[in-house]
């Protein structure tokens, strides 16, 4: 660094950027803040925000008595990926994309694990019944119950899967031809939250680069 006095009340500092020590620090910062490294930590920071959002949802939406926590498992599934300088966050949890985009769910037509026959109707657990949050395979000896006068092949909400309980019949699932799910954009956090976290973590990465060279 060179100091020159231009007047009695002003000094000009001329910083020599080719100085070996300074160059070393700048090189280290440049290497540490490569597009790939930044993308990696930005993706991880974004993944954290997505995880946090699922955990918040799990606290408010998880129903008492349900043993499998959908949103907590969604949070656990979140992973980061990078492709060159691009940061990606993946959520490989069945049902998250369905909730986010919404749309019509139709039977797969694949053979049922329970009956072996192609699945032509969806079994939806009835709210407040033991079927809620479950699938038919959870229960032994289910049988079909239809409302009086329902014709064969009717796929409206007129048929149920039920079980016998203490001399009575308990309906657990309603069988339907399709289900429409409304889109729910709140399953993902807002973009600005992800970007804010990404910016913060790049400062952390910068901090690491400078700390190692001081």
């Amino acid at each position: 660094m060179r100091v020159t006095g231009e007047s009695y009340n002003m000094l000009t500092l001329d910083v020599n950027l080719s100085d070996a020590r300074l160059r070393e620090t700048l090189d280290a910062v440049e290497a540490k803040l490569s597009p790939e490294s930044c993308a990696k930590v930005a993706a991880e920071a974004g993944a954290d925000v997505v995880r946090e959002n699922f955990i918040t949802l799990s606290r408010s939406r998880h129903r008492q008595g349900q043993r499998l926590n959908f949103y907590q498992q969604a949070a656990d599934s979140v992973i980061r990926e990078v492709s060159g300088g691009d940061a990606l966050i993946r959520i490989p949890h069945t049902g998250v994309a369905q909730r986010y985009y919404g749309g019509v769910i139709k039977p797969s037509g694949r053979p049922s694990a329970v009956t072996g026959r192609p699945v032509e109707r969806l079994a939806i657990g009835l709210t407040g019944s033991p079927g809620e949050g479950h699938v038919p395979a959870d229960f032994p000896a289910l049988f079909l119950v239809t409302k009086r006068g329902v014709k064969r092949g009717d796929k409206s909400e007129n048929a149920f899967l039920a079980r016998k309980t203490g001399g009575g019949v308990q309906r657990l699932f309603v069988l339907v031809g399709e289900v429409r799910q409304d889109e729910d954009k709140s399953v993902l956090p807002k973009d600005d939250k992800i970007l804010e976290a990404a910016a913060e973590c790049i400062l952390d990465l910068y901090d690491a680069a400078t700390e190692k060279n001081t």
Partner: protein
Amino acid sequence: MLSADYIRKLLPVATDLTAAEIGRHIPQAMRDAAVYSARTVYVGHVADTQQDLATALDGKMSAAQVRGLMKLRLRKLGFAPSEADAGSLADLSSDARTSLIVSHQMQRASGYAKWRADQDADILDAFPGQEMYRASAAKVPRDWMRRWNDARAALGAATTATEATTQDGPFVALKNDPIWVHPSVNRFGSPFPPFDFNSSMRVRNVGRRRCRELGLLKDKELSARLLKPARDPMDGNVTSSSAAGMDPSLVNAWADAFGGSARVYTGRDGLPRVAVAPDPADVLAQISEAARAGAKAEADFGLAPDVLTKPGTLKTPVGPDTSLRITADQARHIIAEHGAEPRAGQAAVTYGDISAIPETLKRGRWRESTEQEKAGYPGAAATFVGEDGTVIAFRIGQGKKSRHMTVQTLYKVKKENPPQA
């Protein structure tokens, strides 16, 4: 998905032990390499559940479907709980039990995937720490403050952990801090959640500047050591752990379930230990792939055979925890030297022959390597001569923490020219 791959690599083990007995009598190395459920003797059921869990972790099946299929399978197997057990955790088909297994195993696999992804220099620089926190309210909360502080006190200067002042923590430490595997904090001993059964404690990243504020980076030497990416036990390495104080018959029964991939032996301190090798088929497939791609890789594909651990075959027997190792460089070298244009009297070696090494080693005999086979190598070396004419030479080496026999070369002598045994 990494989490799905993790669960697929585990060995399904049938056991009639309780969770407490497994924790007390089964060494960590075997527990880490296995998928099991307390008092579940239906190994097919465990294996099918393992596959379903992997499908769910790939995002192709819901957790509720996995649970439903578990119950369906148990009904088909004719399982019926006793009247006293019905509906409880002891009932394999109960909602409580099947849900516990599904959520525990999925959390375990996801925990591994996150931990594995964290073992990266950039991530450890930006997020050196992690915080354990309660993701959802528990009916009967465990005393995590006491557990954490007990572990912290026991570790003393070896830990960077913050002191927990409430039941909500703060439970913060550097990512590779020993507190994460301390038995007070972690019932299972793996460096990732779950830390206990049915626990909703999770971990989240803590950035570098926050770690500094909390004093986690104060001890430069300690933090530098704890911020080195850790070795992944799933990356094709033999792992070993103590079996001291455990019931030998139970340890041996589990080791048997691993076939030749696990060995119970006496360690250098005179105490019993167990060594577990990864699945050889998986390892050799990965090494062949790396060799074809020109990449660097090395992995253990088994344990040194019994005959070499006892006097008689080699001048100095190898240790019982010695691994059989192969590198992608050597696999490439073998194919280059003995592949397309084999020497006179030899048959062409393919990557299929490299994948078949564990099978080849079952029929033939071992001997000291000749000076020619050692090709100037000053250390110990052993050669296997297979009944089918395959000759495999190994160099015996000592790493920082482990001993290994590394494949040096492999060639196949045509049947009309039987190799010298």
